[in-house]
């Protein structure tokens, strides 16, 4: 049969026999087959082939007892839940699952949010309480302040006594130091997070100016893509420490605070005593030099001794001055950090450059990810396959046994 010249394709004859043609086409093919010898022959051969399949007979199924029982037991079929019931129970269980999921999410959110909120509100609350209680809310701070106030109160009398005694002569400090009360060198570490870094910095400068303090050191870092930080060592007059500290705390959220008071009374008293002795020694040496006459060598020795004593006195006076300065000016190690807010970068120069950069980055990323995948596969694939084989085959075998046992138990139950 020539397919090109024939109006009916052989496959159409087959489709006609199978009843797969439309009615019109079927009538046409039928009439054609009646007229065409080749198509009639094809129809006969295809029909014979199909009839040959009738010889392939399959015996009746030896229905298993389980299936017989299954069919005999309407209870088994009825044991399958009706769709409405099944759907309802499924819906309820799904609803429960959703409810549990929502509750879990809410709990997680609360667990993450509440501590942050409390931590954020705590400094404000404490500051309010401190204002309400006159600054006595913080036990350590309050006790230290009280102790310092008491110290300063006790120091008032010795100051006057000291002035009267005139122990330091020409180098008598203006505030006057006595030896009756404890001397405390106070150091405070404060870490504050501010929303507006520039405003925080300006406020810090204002605090320094207002309380006549100064910054012993100051370091500002502005890393790219991160929050700005300021670290400063502020020296504030001790009587104004409390007020300055309160103002610095109000700059933002206090992340950490520690206060330390070092008592330097004994050290100061020792220095004063040694200075006093050395000065008396110096006076005696000067008297010797002035009243006694002797050899030149002796005169030189006395002058040398006076110079040594004078040097010691000056060194100790410097130490005393430093010590008194530490007491006069409390140190605040301030760490000021900015609440980081991602900033929109400056606009890209042009769309073309953005496209170019994006394309290059895309290729790099694609290549990197591909390389990472290849490396991962090269490194992990053998061991993964090995473990998959070790773990997968027993699991598969167990699953198969479980399914069989389930089917058998269903049959047995029926």
């Amino acid at each position: 049969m020539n397919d090109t010249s024939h109006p009916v394709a052989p496959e159409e004859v087959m489709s006609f026999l199978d009843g797969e043609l439309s009615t019109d086409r079927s009538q046409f093919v039928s009439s054609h087959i009646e007229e065409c010898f080749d198509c009639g022959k094809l129809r006969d051969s295809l029909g014979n082939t199909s009839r040959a399949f009738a010889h392939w007979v399959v015996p009746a199924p030896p229905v298993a007892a389980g299936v017989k029982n299954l069919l005999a037991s309407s209870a088994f079929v009825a044991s399958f839940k009706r769709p409405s019931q099944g759907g309802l129970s499924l819906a309820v269980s799904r609803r429960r699952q959703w409810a549990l999921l929502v509750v879990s999410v809410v709990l997680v959110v609360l667990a993450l949010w509440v501590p942050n909120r409390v931590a954020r509100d705590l400094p404000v609350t404490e500051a309010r309480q401190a204002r309400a209680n006159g600054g006595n809310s913080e036990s350590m701070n309050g006790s230290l302040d009280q102790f310092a106030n008491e110290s300063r109160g006790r120091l008032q009398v010795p100051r006057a006594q000291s002035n009267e005694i005139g122990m330091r002569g020409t180098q008598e400090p203006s505030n006057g130091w006595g030896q009756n009360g404890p001397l405390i060198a106070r150091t405070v570490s404060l870490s504050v997070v501010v929303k507006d870094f520039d405003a925080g910095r300006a406020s810090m400068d204002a605090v320094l100016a207002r309380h006549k303090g100064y910054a012993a050191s100051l370091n500002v870092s502005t890393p790219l893509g991160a929050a700005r930080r300021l670290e400063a060592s502020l020296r504030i007059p001790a009587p104004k420490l409390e007020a300055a500290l309160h103002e610095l705390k109000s700059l933002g959220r206090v992340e950490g605070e520690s206060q330390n008071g070092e008592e330097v009374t004994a050290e100061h008293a020792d220095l004063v005593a040694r200075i006093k002795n050395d000065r008396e020694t110096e006076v005696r040496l000067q008297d010797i030099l002035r009243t006694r006459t002797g050899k030149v060598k002796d005169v030189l020795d006395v002058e040398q001794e006076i110079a040594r004593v004078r040097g010691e006195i000056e060194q100790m006076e410097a130490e005393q001055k430093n010590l008194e300065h530490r007491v006069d000016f409390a140190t605040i190690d301030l760490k000021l950090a900015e609440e980081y807010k991602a900033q929109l970068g400056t606009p890209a120069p042009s769309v073309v450059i953005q496209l170019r950069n994006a394309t290059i980055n895309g290729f790099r990323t694609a290549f990197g990810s591909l390389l990472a995948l290849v490396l991962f596969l090269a490194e992990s694939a053998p061991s993964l396959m090995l473990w998959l084989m070790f773990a997968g085959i027993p699991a598969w075998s167990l699953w198969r046994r479980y399914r069989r046992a389930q089917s058998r138990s269903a049959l047995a139950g029926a």
Partner: protein
Amino acid sequence: MSDERLMLAFAQGSSEAFTELFHRYKQPVYGFFCRRIAEPANAEELAQETFFALLRARDHYQPRALFRTYLYAISFKILRAHRRKAAFRATFFGHRNPVWDVSKRDATESGLWVRRAVEKLDPLDREIVMLREFEQLSYAEIADLLELRLNTVRSRLFRARTALRDLLEPAARAAKSVLEHHPAQTASPNAAEASAQKGECA
């Protein structure tokens, strides 16, 4: 009552509907597996699995196609899973798939020459022609089941039938000559029934 209505009734909880469906299709489904699997016991087991799957899936049944197509789709999936497991078993455990050993069959078996001819076909062509000839599925249903295009099904079916014709005609002639020369060993008209009584998948 149509198959689809019975299935819907079964989905509503009627056990009688399932019983009726089972009686209608137990032979076709068993035949489906029996023609494709060498071991009759396995065919029986898979036929049972098919009906169990039907039981389990009844809540999801929607009469979008003929029930017959739906049932054969389940059967086909189970058959594929069985073949996959068998291939896995053969690969990793060395269990060889039992094959049709025609030498152990009854020589007078009437369908033997048909089966031998079918075995020589390409696996996909064989599946298509068997789905058409035995399960009486339409071209569109076969295309859906095997995930093929309709034209592919038609052309492959034609090719398979042509090949079968070429294979069967000499065999039929040879069988006819054998019948003429050895009347004692003729295949009786009831040979298929005799084979069926032996419980073999012929």
